[in-house]
């Protein structure tokens, strides 16, 4: 299968990106400044991310669609206001996660942003679950760009007037070069920011204007260190078909009303896990020293019992030290529990900790 390129490929190339294959796309992992600089630039200024490999699924329909989607997603969709977004999951009958996603109510339907590696399978599953009743478009003609960081609002508002009025997890249609672009205030870095769905032929011009205003291109490498510091899950690592939203410590994303009433795919397991507890659960893990514990690193307790595994681990440039997330047996998941991480045959001490690792200080000037 031929490897795909996004509409911004040439711009990445001109900016000396190093590329990697990710979910069938040739994507920039970093540019010449390197991951640490890109990470810090996003935290202090504004980073631009090409996330066009992600799926933009438009589903059109009326109240029947809302009812049918409520059988799939554990959300109170009938009360979701126009242009408001929710984080959710596509699950199997055992509440295992096929994908995590953002669903937004738009006029005449919903827009769902899906992970690149999952989008085709998600489309197939959703079409079957919806019995092919509704028009579904996995739009390849639109690119997706994120701008993230404390300067994001000011820079984007210079180009798209009024965008600063959007509240977190809401969106709207705006115009760029007389064409419709859809902007939501959201992101994946722990920073304030926006995601912009824009026709492919306009994406480069749009991104170049943002660069002129002071934003910089940031690769997938820094996207990963930023999201990990923010304690956000990455599909295929913290989330997969063998983990449920309750085990992933994401029960906040399930509407309370829906927990009581059930009647969505996986609800039996979710209800059971909520009342009986889970055997494993996702936690933050902070190594005591400098050693980085990567994915698949084994976690032990004080008595040298194997109690879990790391799912993501790296060096956090803003934390200035190693950070990790993983799954441990529930009884060892309390904050400040001492654990040991086996790296290259040696065991290194670490603590179970709360998430996120990095919390934004909104005090002006405090985050230089």
């Amino acid at each position, binding site marked *: 299968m031929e490897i795909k390129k996004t509409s911004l490929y040439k711009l990445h190339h001109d900016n000396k990106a190093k590329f990697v294959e990710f979910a069938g796309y040739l994507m920039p992992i970093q540019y010449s400044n390197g991951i640490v600089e890109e990470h810090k630039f996003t935290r202090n200024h504004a980073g631009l991310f090409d996330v066009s490999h992600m799926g933009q699924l438009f589903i059109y329909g009326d109240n029947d669609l809302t009812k049918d989607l409520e059988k799939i997603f554990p959300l109170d969709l009938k009360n979701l206001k126009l242009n408001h977004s929710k984080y959710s999951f596509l699950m199997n009958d055992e509440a295992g996660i096929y994908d995590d996603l953002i669903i937004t109510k738009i006029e005449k339907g919903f827009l769902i942003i899906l992970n690149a590696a999952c989008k085709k399978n998600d489309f197939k599953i959703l079409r079957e679950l919806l019995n092919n009743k509704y028009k579904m478009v996995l739009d390849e003609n639109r690119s997706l760009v994120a701008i993230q960081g404390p300067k994001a609002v000011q820079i984007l508002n210079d180009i798209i007037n009024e965008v600063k009025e959007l509240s977190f997890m809401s969106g709207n249609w705006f115009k760029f070069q007389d064409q419709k672009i859809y902007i939501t205030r959201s992101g994946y870095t722990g920073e304030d920011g926006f995601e912009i769905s824009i026709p492919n032929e306009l994406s480069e011009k749009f991104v170049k204007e943002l660069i002129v205003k002071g934003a910089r291109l940031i690769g997938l490498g820094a996207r*990963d260190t930023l999201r990990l510091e923010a304690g956000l899950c990455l599909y295929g690592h913290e989330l997969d078909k063998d983990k449920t939203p309750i085990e992933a410590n994401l029960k906040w994303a399930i509407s309370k009303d829906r927990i009581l009433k059930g009647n969505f795919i996986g609800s039996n397991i979710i209800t059971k896990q909520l009342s009986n507890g889970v055997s494993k659960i996702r936690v933050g893990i902070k190594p005591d020293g400098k050693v980085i514990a990567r994915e698949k690193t084994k976690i032990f307790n004080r008595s040298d019992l194997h109690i879990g595994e790391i799912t993501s681990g790296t060096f956090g440039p803003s934390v200035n030290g190693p950070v990790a997330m993983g799954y441990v047996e529930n009884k060892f998941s309390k904050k400040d529990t001492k654990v040991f991480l086996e790296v290259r045959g040696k065991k290194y001490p670490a603590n179970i900790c709360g998430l996120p690792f990095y919390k934004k200080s909104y005090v002006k000037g405090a985050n230089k």
Partner: protein
Amino acid sequence: MSDVKYSKEHEWIKLEGDIATIGITKHATEMLGDIVFTELPEKGSNVDKDGTAGVVESTKAASDVYTPVSGEVVDTNQDIVDDPSKINQDPENTAWFFKLKIKDKSEMESLMSKDEYDKFAKESSS
């Protein structure tokens, strides 16, 4: 410098008497990206030619550091453990990794000259 040799694992080695100073090449640091963690062999330990003698980690991944010759570790560079970013800044000079009292000078013979290494690095990265 004529007395610096290079390995296929992207280490450089500079011999002065029977003391060899070893580090990783600029080309290696460019492939690795930002180095954020370093582990060095213990002083007094013995390392064998082509065996692992340390670890460097970037934000992306961990990589072993190999020793191109055998010997006893007589010194290590604590500066690069305290601040691994120094390796990206000055890899072939102040950011050396460890010094060995070498056992067998003939082990140096299989290593590459600067010109040979530059050609090798160019070919292996294209």
